[in-house]
């Protein structure tokens, strides 16, 4: 179907292109080649049918109990994670760049952590200021000199990417502590395969359902050498945690025990799990608890979530943790500004994925610039995640700006600022019609000594409110399925063989 040069079909009447890169349409409002099939399907799909499928999808989430908790609101209770019906599509070539870029980044960040917690060469060489490390609240001095299994600090990362107006992917932030959301990626796929079975089958979408097995392999690789059957557990803070659904989901998919701190016990520097058949030794812990709470003896004495003495068992090499303690120093938002230099330092390569311009408020001249342009910038606290405590300059009030002026001046090191980046837009189903909404992408990176595995795609998060740039689920964002397409050449081969088989 060719598009008339003037105007769009009624289905897309509300679709306006802004300054942002649009995933589906060229600036001339022509569908991009890889969106053509979806575009045509949408033209054929009556609005009431689209609504019906959206309802079917929502019901599916509700029935599966896929909910999360929004903190900091009065009604802060469990909600369904909003799901947008229309898939976000990424070409093979685009994904190839993303995959190489993420692999490069995680490799460098892991080397950075090893260096920081041993000789600190990058600090002596003056590439990263020592002060930035020591003033980072996620830097764990107790980790210095501690040997982590196979030198793997980051086993699981979630790296947030955005697409800039020129169409290239850039990194917005690294999440190297306990990134969440991967269960939504997996469930979104299951749901869309039911809602759009034909479209999905014909599109040549690369599978993602091997994620759990890849995660299990990554965890197994941390087990003591030659251990035939390591006991791996998933450690959750408990049912009140916003990501509890995910902890249970992943444990079930991997066939592992889901435990809380009180289910574990430490004796003679070995971690045991209490079972009905007595104590069972634990070899690897996929922990979804923050560093601070992991061991009340070593870290926060008021923590009730962790296992007292766990850090001693860890230090003794009797248990492995994924991720390691202290990885947060490398995803600090001020450290982020140094990642291109970190990549260059350890790998001798230029960063494949660019950073977004970042101003460090700890630097006098950069801070002055930020304070003079608060209405145009996004200000973020360096140690937070989940979109909490941010100022979105263009959408802020005078009062909010003054508040941040005060906060930044009080503790400059704790804030960074970035120009307001126009996240790309993708078509979303809005009450039977199709409208653009801003999106980002969080691919999940699994890193072990042998390999780095990134299942194609990730979680595409959507700012459901029209014009909003905040995609965080904790701030009311939603998500959609992400389709990374097979290499067209492979696909032809695949289809040929399938046809001949039939």
């Amino acid at each position, binding site marked *: 179907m060719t598009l008339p040069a003037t105007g769009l079909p009624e289905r897309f009447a509300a679709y306006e292109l802004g300054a942002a890169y649009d995933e589906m349409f060229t600036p001339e409002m022509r569908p991009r080649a890889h969106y053509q099939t979806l575009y045509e399907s949408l033209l054929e799909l009556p609005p009431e049918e689209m609504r019906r499928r959206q309802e079917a999808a929502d019901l599916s989430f509700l029935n599966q109990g896929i909910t999360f908790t929004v903190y900091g609101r009065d009604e802060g209770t469990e909600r369904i994670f909003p799901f947008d019906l229309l898939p976000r599509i990424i070409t093979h070539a685009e994904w190839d760049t993303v995959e190489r870029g993420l692999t490069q980044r995680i490799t460098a960040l892991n080397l950075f952590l090893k260096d920081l917690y041993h000789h600190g060469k990058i600090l002596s060489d003056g590439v990263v200021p020592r002060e930035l490390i020591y003033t980072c609240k996620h830097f764990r001095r107790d980790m210095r000199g501690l040997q982590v299994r196979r030198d793997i600090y980051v086993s699981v990362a979630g790296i947030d990417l955005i697409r800039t107006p020129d169409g290239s992917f850039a990194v917005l932030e690294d999440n190297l502590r306990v990134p969440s959301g991967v269960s939504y990626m997996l469930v979104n796929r299951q749901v869309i395969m039911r809602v759009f079975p034909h479209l999905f089958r014909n599109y040549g979408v690369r599978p993602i359902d091997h994620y759990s097995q890849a995660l299990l392999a990554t965890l197994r690789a941390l087990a003591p050498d030659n251990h035939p059957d390591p006991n791996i557990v998933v450690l959750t803070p408990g049912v009140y945690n916003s990501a509890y659904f995910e902890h249970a989901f992943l444990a079930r998919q991997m066939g592992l025990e889901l435990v809380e701190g009180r289910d574990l016990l430490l004796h003679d520097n070995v971690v045991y799990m209490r079972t009905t058949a007595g104590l069972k030794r634990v070899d690897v812990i996929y922990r979804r608890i923050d560093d601070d709470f992991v061991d009340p003896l070593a870290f926060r*004495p008021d923590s009730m979530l962790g296992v007292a003495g766990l850090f001693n068992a860890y230090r003794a090499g009797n248990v492995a943790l994924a991720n390691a303690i202290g990885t947060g120093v490398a995803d600090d938002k001020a450290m982020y500004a140094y990642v291109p230099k970190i990549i260059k330092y350890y790998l001798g390569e230029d960063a494949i994925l660019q950073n977004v311009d970042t101003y460090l408020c700890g630097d006098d001249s950069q801070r002055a610039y930020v304070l003079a342009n608060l209405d145009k910038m996004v200000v973020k606290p360096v140690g937070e995640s989940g979109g909490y405590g941010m100022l979105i300059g263009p959408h802020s009030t005078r009062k909010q700006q003054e508040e941040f002026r005060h906060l930044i001046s009080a503790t400059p090191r704790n804030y960074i600022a970035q120009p307001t980046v126009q996240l790309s837009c993708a078509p979303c189903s809005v009450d039977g019609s199709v409208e653009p909404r801003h999106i980002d992408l969080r691919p999940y990176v699994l890193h072990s000594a042998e390999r780095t595995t990134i299942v194609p795609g990730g979680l595409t998060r959507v700012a459901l409110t029209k014009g909003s740039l905040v995609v965080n689920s904790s701030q009311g964002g939603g998500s959609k399925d992400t389709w990374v397409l097979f290499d067209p050449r492979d696909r032809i081969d695949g289809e040929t063989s399938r046809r001949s088989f039939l």
Partner: protein
Amino acid sequence: MHYTIRHITRFHYTHPVSESLTEARMQPITDANQRCLNFELSTSPEARIMSYRDHLGNIVHNFDIPGHHSKLTITAKALVDVQDPAPLPDSLPISAWKELDSIVSRDDFYEILVPSPFTQATPLLAEFTRELAVGRDDDPLTLLHRINSGIFQRFDYAPQTTRVDSPIDDALRARKGVCQDFSHIMIALVRQVGIPCRYVSGYLFHRTEDHDRSAADSSHAWVEALLPGIGWVGFDPTNNLVAGGRHIRVAVGCDYADVPPTRGVFKGQAKSELSVAVSVLPSTEPAPTQMNYSPILSIGSHGAEPDWASEEFAQQIQQQQ
């Protein structure tokens, strides 16, 4: 000189507790001026004692007692050989500051150059800094001597007036305290002028003829500062001493929080009561027939099962005096 040290720590719980985990920093350091020839740590109830070297280089012993218990006794015995350090020069040239700055820029002294939890800069500290005229007008060694004696002269030694977790302001306000407070104040002052300075936990061998202010049957604390061309030099502001052959070093850190003699957690709804006895004697003397225990002190850590109750910082009695 060879010393025999006995350090007994007794916990009594008002109700049985379980799954207690304890870490002890009690083994004297072995380095150029001091050699720990023998160290034994035993517990009752018995436990398997493990050890590791922490990120500051201190030897830490750790153990756990899983079953229910109402008492815990930790007995540490050490045989240590301490040498007198080489005598200090009377003063250093003023150019020593430059040398110091160059050493500091080359190596990583960051943590012992900035305020740590117990050595925060406060308005009272700023006032005291002015009172002692702490600055770079003197050479570094002369300045350290002045600070050391300045604290000694201006503060009364008064046990029980501050707590193990007191901020320096308490002592600065009252102009009295114990060795832990004086050490924290000295550290805060010394770091301000850019001299790396750390907290030392240890023991002082008291002879009657010395008239030391600090308590004899107790652990002790002082500071060490880094001087160019000399190395680490110990200053004991409680007793107006340069640390020498009577100072037995056990652990070093940014401040007390890094080096408590014991810290631990347990499960159970109980208060713990703690008493400590320390003796430091020349190894030629026989073991004391009786140890002098500190008065029993009730420390308010009680947790509702299955919460962890923490003994850290609640251990008033472990305040270093």
